[in-house]
């Protein structure tokens, strides 16, 4: 595989979008109310749409004839480069909503910035994604406030979700050598530049939600270079089963 930095980077963006989109789709038919069922379905669809555009582009960059389906369905866990946050289990409603907040508060400014990329395709995908992630941010922020500032039960669950997911937030701001070169070329976004904005958004939401913000202790890392938690294998076994069992099957 011709693993150029641009290919690696595009797959990181695509895998993160696909895995989070798949996680949200797991709620469909299981949400507490129909409106939230629709909301998870819609948000999942946005993310899977972003992933499709990015996989198609990754296939073009690679130039080996792999299309979006081949990249999504026929790569194993070690080849996936999504951040660990998005593969964490859905848990309860609060856990899913807080995970969405932590990611959207990062992804929204990230894609806004990526619209200035010197890479025209990434800039175009980012322009759509930025608008979509703004809605995800608003929705998940409102729910986090409602849950945190709600009953004792919802407060306790929301706080547990924040505490549990916090160690996965550091990875979003990492920039390794693969990305550093792309940042310098004006292709990729330096995530460190978004840290202050993310901190501000999250602090404001948590404070309004009467939730306490954990200290930045040890941060989990490795998803972006293919070192995943056990959860990704389980996601892929469901996501990829059909294409693995019946190669090339179509509707």
């Amino acid at each position, binding site marked *: 595989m011709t693993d150029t930095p641009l290919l690696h980077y595009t797959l990181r963006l695509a895998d993160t979008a696909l895995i989070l989109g798949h996680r949200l789709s797991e709620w469909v038919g299981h949400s507490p109310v129909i*409106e939230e069922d629709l909301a998870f379905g819609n948000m999942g*669809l946005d993310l899977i749409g972003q992933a499709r555009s990015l996989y198609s582009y990754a296939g073009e960059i690679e130039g080996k004839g792999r299309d979006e389906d081949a990249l999504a369905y026929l790569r194993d866990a070690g080849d996936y480069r999504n951040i660990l946050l998005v593969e964490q289990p859905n848990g309860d409603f609060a856990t899913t909503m807080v995970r969405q907040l932590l990611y959207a508060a990062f992804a929204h400014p990230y894609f806004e910035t990526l619209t200035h990329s010197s890479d025209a395709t990434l800039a175009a995908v980012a322009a759509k994604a930025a608008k979509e992630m703004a809605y995800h941010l608003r929705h998940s922020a409102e729910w986090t406030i409602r849950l945190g500032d709600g009953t004792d039960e919802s407060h306790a669950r929301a706080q547990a979700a924040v505490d549990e997911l916090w160690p996965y937030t550091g990875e979003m701001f990492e920039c390794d050598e693969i990305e550093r070169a792309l940042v310098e070329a004006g292709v990729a976004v330096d995530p460190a530049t978004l840290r202050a904005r993310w901190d501000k958004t999250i602090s404001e939401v948590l404070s309004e939600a009467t939730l306490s913000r954990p200290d930045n202790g040890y941060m989990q890392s490795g998803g972006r270079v293919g070192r995943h938690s056990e959860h990704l294998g389980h996601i892929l076994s469901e996501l990829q089963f059909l294409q693995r069992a019946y190669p090339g099957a179509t509707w």
Partner: protein
Amino acid sequence: MTATVPDHDLRERAWAAAATVCDPEIPVLGIADLGILRDIKIDNGTVEAVITPTYSGCPAMNMIALEIEVALENAGFAKPKVTTVLSPAWTTDWMTDEGKAKLKAYGIAPPAVKSGRRALFGDQSVACPHCGSSDTALISEFGSTACKALWRCKACAEPFDYFKCI
């Protein structure tokens, strides 16, 4: 097609044919009214329709592309092409006034303000498409399709879809 027909005539005919295609989720709204149909290109008598999705994951796009091909073939264009572009990103600002009026008549509140950060993070005020009251409330940020939110009217008690500003 004969080579004697000027390209701009062909383009006009092709545009008119493609514009008859409706969004399958909003059957009163043509894809030109919606701003999904971006361009018609004529190359050597071959027609290419350029469309852009409203949302990255809009599941109606495949259906719309297929229907454009059928509409163009029915209008006498052989082997039409449909191309999807992502840039510039679709915005509700492209929706025509006629389109907005059709939406409202169909019972969907059209996008109320210009897109932008204020539309996303400011307080929204949406008028009920049924009775016109502005005494309305958001039920859910996400409605029956990616492009709509779910609202209710406190005056006439009817729920309604609102076409989100992006």
